[in-house]
């Protein structure tokens, strides 16, 4: 069988039952909150609406007959329900969020305010274009900034997230290869890549061939050359890579890929390290998505929404999907369909209904304008500075998979320093929760055993990093001193102890099930 080497316990563990015992189950500010379906009531509504006057229905025979089981709450109850739920969440606004590869930086509230201006938030994607010139202007301006920062030729704004941007970039590559009439069906992906890379390539029917990493996690141009052939369509490379290192041979890799007639897709998840420091267009990249929700700080919102615009080199620019903004003599024009195309524009199709994540565009441009070119560069420098500062603070007590070396915006540790302690990466991460920190990214990249990937971002002050480093140092000492229970039982102070993921997967309960079925209860 194909072996998983990153196995870790997924049952809840043996934590002793809590001694804390209140009538409500609450623990002061930690309030228990029942499910909406337990506290909501049929017939209750928190929205005052007047019944319409009598009218002749035009629903035909498709009037709803099935019962509608959606209990409601009054406004005060609803507000309390969601406020209580919110209090069970960790957030950037409440603490350092060092998730490697995720770029959890501060989300300026100015951006929220501007995205809610009626001129942005209350415009319809299909109202006449003559009534939304400011929206098209904003898209053009965002595109101009992205192109200047990357040194690329054109931009597709419509992809809705990073993985969607990958799909967009790889579709453009597939279209370009088909336009050349070549049967290329292999995509090279380093073993350290994000899972979205092979998933995207496979979705488009490409065969994924893994590129082995060097000992330090970087890609060797010779290893790439050995795999290149007339069947190879592209390489998908993350730079800086998922080990937090800049691919120092990226130019040689790009040259080899181009010489073989293939394209270079760059996963831009880690763009935050190099804004204003290097332009990917000059590194030989043909397409790269940019996670506006990482580098340009549109809030992650508990899992989304994001935005994943893709920048293209001149080799792929013509294939950018509809819709796109064309900059003409009379200003920017939103090109929505084939009928409006000009010579040299050969879009591969359409990724989404409408025009993309306008709400994210406004926030990202607000962020960019606030920073300016100089501030964006400073942000990248501070992000890299902070990661290296954490590295310097921990290098004598934690282990790095390829020795102590300069990293980019995130620093990678492995579980070597825990060997013999009985504490695992998982335990270590959970103990951080008790100390008030969100854990770093664990067990990724897969090429490193017990990986711990720390990305502090530029938002953290020196004092914040000093406390973080001191905390981790203290935890390391406690692990080495044999204070095992602290780790195995962690987290002890969070709204929940470790959760039984085995049970969740073996007996999936994915929706609320009433003790008595709704149809019977309603009778």
């Amino acid at each position, binding site marked *: *069988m*194909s*072996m*998983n*080497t*990153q*196995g*870790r*316990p*997924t*049952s809840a563990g043996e934590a002793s039952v809590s001694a804390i015992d209140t009538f409500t189950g609450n623990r002061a500010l930690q309030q228990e909150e029942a499910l909406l379906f337990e506290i909501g009531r049929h017939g209750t509504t928190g929205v005052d609406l007047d019944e319409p006057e009598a009218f002749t229905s035009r629903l035909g025979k498709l009037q709803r007959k099935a019962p509608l089981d959606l209990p409601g709450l009054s406004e005060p109850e609803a507000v309390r329900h969601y406020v209580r739920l919110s209090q069970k969440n960790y957030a950037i606004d409440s603490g350092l969020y060092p998730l490697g590869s995720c770029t959890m930086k501060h989300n300026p509230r100015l951006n929220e305010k501007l995205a809610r201006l009626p001129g942005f938030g209350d415009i319809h994607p299909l109202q006449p274009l003559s009534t939304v010139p400011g929206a098209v202007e904003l898209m053009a301006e965002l595109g101009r900034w992205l192109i200047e920062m990357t040194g690329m030729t054109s931009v597709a704004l419509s992809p809705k997230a990073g993985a969607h941007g990958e799909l967009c970039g790889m579709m453009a590559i597939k279209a370009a290869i088909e336009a050349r009439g070549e049967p290329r069906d292999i995509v090279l992906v380093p073993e350290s890549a994000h899972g979205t890379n092979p998933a995207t390539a496979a979705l488009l029917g490409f065969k994924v061939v893994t590129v082995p990493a060097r000992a330090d996690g970087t890609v060797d141009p010779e290893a790439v050359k050995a795999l290149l052939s007339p069947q190879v369509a592209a390489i998908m490379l993350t730079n800086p890579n998922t080990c937090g290192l800049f691919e120092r041979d990226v130019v040689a890799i790009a040259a080899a890929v181009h010489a073989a007639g293939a394209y270079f897709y760059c996963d831009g998840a880690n763009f935050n390290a190099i804004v204003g420091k290097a332009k990917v267009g000059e590194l030989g990249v043909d397409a790269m998505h940019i996670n506006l929700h990482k580098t340009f700080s549109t809030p992650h919102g508990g899992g989304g929404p994001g935005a994943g615009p893709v920048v293209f080199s001149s080799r792929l620019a013509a294939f950018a999907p509809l819709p796109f903004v064309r900059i003409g003599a009379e200003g920017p024009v939103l090109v929505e369909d084939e009928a409006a195309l000009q010579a040299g524009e050969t879009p591969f199709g359409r990724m989404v209904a409408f025009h993309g994540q306008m709400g994210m565009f406004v926030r990202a441009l607000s962020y960019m304008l606030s920073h300016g070119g100089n501030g964006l560069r400073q942000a990248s420098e501070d992000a890299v500075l902070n990661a290296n500062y954490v590295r310097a603070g921990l290098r004598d007590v934690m282990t790095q998979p390829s020795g102590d070396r300069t990293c980019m915006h995130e620093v990678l540790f492995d579980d070597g320093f825990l060997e013999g302690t009985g504490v695992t990466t998982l335990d270590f991460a959970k103990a951080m929760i008790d100390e008030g920190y969100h854990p770093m990214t664990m*067990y990724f990249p897969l090429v490193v055993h017990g990986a711990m990937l720390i990305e502090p971002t530029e938002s953290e002050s020196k004092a914040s990093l000093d406390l973080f480093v001191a905390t981790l140092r203290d935890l390391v000492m406690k692990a080495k001193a044999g204070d095992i229970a602290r780790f195995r039982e962690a987290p002890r102070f969070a709204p929940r102890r470790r959760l039984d*993921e*085995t049970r*969740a*997967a*073996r007996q999936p309960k994915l929706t609320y099930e009433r003790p008595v079925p709704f149809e019977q209860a309603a009778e």
Partner: protein
Amino acid sequence: MATYFTKDHEWVRIDGDIATVGITDYAQSQLGDVVYVELPEIGKELKKGDEAAVVESVKAASEVFAPISGTVEGVNAGLVDQPAAINESAEGAGWFLRLIVADKGELSGLMDESTYRNFLETL
């Protein structure tokens, strides 16, 4: 009855023309709690090395490869509802499938138990 092992941590037990296939105790310990298995259809013909089944823990999905060629004659359907049996008895009640052996000559390429245990020492 002779039992053979693969480097990919499958075991195969031969009884006449029938081979019973499962994953080793070492494999289940590496996987962690098994939460799901996907078994092949009866009658499916498998070549040595083909994907025969899928076994999933919470954080990983692994393919189980056919250690030898053969036709699927039976599957351990009870695993679908009780995947924990694989953790509890990987080399016994947690078997995956039975094959009608196509070529017993293929067995010579597999390890016997002591060779496999020694192989594990090297990992």
